[in-house]
Structures are given as C-alpha cells and as structure tokens.
C-alpha cells in the first residue's frame, strides 16, 4: 500500500462553561502563553472575531476558538503539537476555576491513496459490502466510528473515526483519533482539592505524548492490515 501522509493536525477540545470575552489575543500576551509576534498576527488576522459569545483567531500555526460551551485549539503543523499542548494546559492553569466537564485530545491524520481501488480495498475490509448488498443498492462507506479502551487510564474512552474523501483524481482517508476525558469520572482526584480545569491541565501535559504516538501507531497498524493488490 502506497499511502502518503497529506496532513497531520492536532486538536484539543474542552467543554465547559466559558466566558469567551476574556480570551482575547492580548490575554495570551499578558499570561506569556503566546509570543508577542503571534499575538500581533492574531490581532491582525482576517479570522479575528471578538464577541461576547465567540472569540476566534489564528496565527501561523494555531487556530483558536471559544464559545460559552467549548474551547477549541488546533495546531496545523506537527512541529507545534507540543506548543499546542503547553498552550491549552497553560490556559486551563490560568483559568483554573472555569467549570469544565469534558476534554478531547485529538489527532487527525490524512492519508492520500494511490487509487480508488485502494480505497475500495480498505472499505471492503472494514465494512464488508456483503452485509448490505441485499438491503441497499451499491452500498458505500461514508464514515466509520469505533470506540475502545483508551491508552491512558484516566481517559474515559478512545474513538476512532475514519472517513474516505476524494474524487477521481485524488483519493484519501482521514483518521480522527480522539481520546476523551470526563471530569465526572475524575471526581476522586478532584476531591483532593484540584479543580477539574487544573486536573485537565495536568492530564494534557502528562498524556499528550502517549495519546499522540498511540494515534500514529494505530493508523499504521490499521493500514498494515489492509490486504495488498491481488497478484
């Protein structure tokens, strides 16, 4: 199989009760969470939106957004996955009293494939069409989501979402590997005096490397199991 890595991004999503208005680029400068030049770029960015219920900005490596229910940060270059980890851990450390309920550590790996046949081979292995042939005409997989036991014992579950994409010339697969944490299930640790946001901050720092390398090996492992061309 001759798949190539076309894109690799990392996302951290935290669900809770946020006050978006505080997360303006200047706040990041004040807390030394971004470089001055990055704060300046974010402030001048076309994507800058500052409103009571939505703050959104971008830098050369970061996409950041907060709504009242969700904080989302995404690094678009692998060389910035660690800075992304530090950034969100830092945000939760500063905004330590923010009520948070859920966190997802996510890698999205986009693999380009050589041909549509390769794509069909993967599809037929993961979701055999014989299962559907009697009920649906010309069935095809749009996406596949699988949940399992996560690599970190503090996480609640791991979800892998696989989505094919492409046209006649350009085909590929997107693997989203998401490790989910529920504050509710970390209660025992929280009872020791740590806030949920503080705990999530530590978990990001502790678990990111393992979660990230697990995503790499999971994708490689799945692709290895896809049968090759018939001779």
């Amino acid at each position, binding site marked *: 199989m001759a798949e190539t890595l076309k894109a690799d991004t990392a996302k951290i999503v935290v669900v809770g009760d946020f006050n978006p208005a505080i997360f303006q680029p200047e706040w990041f400068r004040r807390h*030394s969470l*971004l470089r001055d030049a990055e704060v300046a770029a974010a402030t001048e960015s076309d994507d800058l939106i500052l409103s009571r*219920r939505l703050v959104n900005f971008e830098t050369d490596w970061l996409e950041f957004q907060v709504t009242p229910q969700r904080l989302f940060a995404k690094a678009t270059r692998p060389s910035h996955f660690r800075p992304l980890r*530090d950034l969100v851990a830092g945000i939760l450390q500063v905004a330590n009293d923010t009520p948070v309920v859920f966190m997802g550590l996510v890698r999205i790996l986009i693999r380009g494939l050589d041909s549509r046949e390769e794509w069909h081979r993967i599809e037929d292995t993961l979701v055999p069409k014989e299962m559907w042939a009697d009920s649906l005409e010309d069935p095809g997989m749009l996406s596949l989501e699988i949940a399992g036991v996560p690599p970190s014992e503090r996480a609640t579950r791991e979800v892998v979402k696989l989505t094919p994409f492409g046209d006649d010339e350009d085909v590929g697969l997107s693997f989203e590997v998401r490790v989910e944490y529920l504050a509710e299930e970390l209660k025992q640790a929280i009872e020791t005096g740590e806030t949920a946001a503080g705990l999530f901050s530590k978990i990001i720092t502790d678990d990111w490397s393992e979660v990230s390398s697990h995503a790499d090996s999971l994708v490689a492992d799945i692709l290895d199991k896809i049968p090759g061309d018939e001779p």
Partner: protein
Amino acid sequence: MSSLDMLAVEHSTGISEDWEWFEERGPKEQFLRELKMLEDRLANLPISEGSAEVDLNQLLMKEMERLWESWREHSLKPDSRPETTVDILKEWEGVVLTVSNDDVQARLTDMNDPANQEELVTFGLDAISPQDHELVEPGAVFYWTVLRETDAFENVRNYSQIRFRRLPAWSRGDLERAETEAEQLHEELFGGRDE
C-alpha cells in the same frame, strides 16, 4: 406552533438564506451580522423558570455553531489538502543548563527514541528566535525540531526550529496564594514561622 418552532422556522428560512447579501458582502460579514442578531436575541431572552428558555438558548447556540461551520466551508480553507506538507525528521526536548555571553549550554533528550543517551550541546543565542530570548534561562525547556517541507512542486526544504516552552506568568494572586500555602505548611510542620 410554539415560539421555539417559530424561531427555528424563521432561522431556517429567513436570515441564513439571504444569498444576495451574502455574495455581495462576503461570508465573514454575513457571519458577523447573523452572529450579532443571535447575540441580541440571547441577550433579550426572558429570564424565567422552566425549560423553554433553556431550549431556546440551546437552539440559538446550535444555530451559531451551524453558522460557524457554514462560514468555514465558504471561507475555503481545506485543511485536508495543504499544498505544502511538513514532516518531522527529528525532535529533541532540551533543558537549558547555563547561559553565558551569547552561548547556551543545554541537555537534549531524543523524543524519537527517549532510550537514546542524553546529549550535551552548546549553541549560540542567535539560533533562538528573539521572541523567546526572555525565556532563555537555566531550567527553561525547549523543543528542537528538524523538519522537511515538501511543496506542491515537490521541492524539498530541510530546516530546524527551536521553540521555548511557554508557561503562564505568575499573577500577584498566585504568589499570595503560594505564600499563604507555604506559611500554612510551615506552621503544620514546625508550629510557627521563623522571622
């Protein structure tokens, strides 16, 4: 029809399909205009008991998310098809040991294979972005990455970058809290604080 249903109909048939305006002004302006209208609605929601307002609030928040997704689609930023791909060839995590004149001595851990022996290196301060100079001090952590960038024409460029870890600055409140905790701990351990 409930007020919730009416609001849903209004949103699905009215504001969002104002395509003429959309094409004239562009997606971001459209997005901002709709966002402002949603925010005004949220700000004017009646505050009373019962779930109707909560549902309404959630509906509006969902609408905001839908708006956002719609804007992202129209802003044509396909993150799945970058023209340039960047691969990490090698990655180290470093800790600064000493800084003297313009030289930085550091200990490096191989992040590709942490079992490899740690290495001591010395490099010039000019290898570090001026944006990070204020962070360069003994104990500071940095990431040193060697990258390969391949553009749409398959031109390859190899380069390395150093980025220092950024931690939140301590606020006056943090310092006061830490001092109080230290005093309490001292009291518990030794029964009083030495002056």
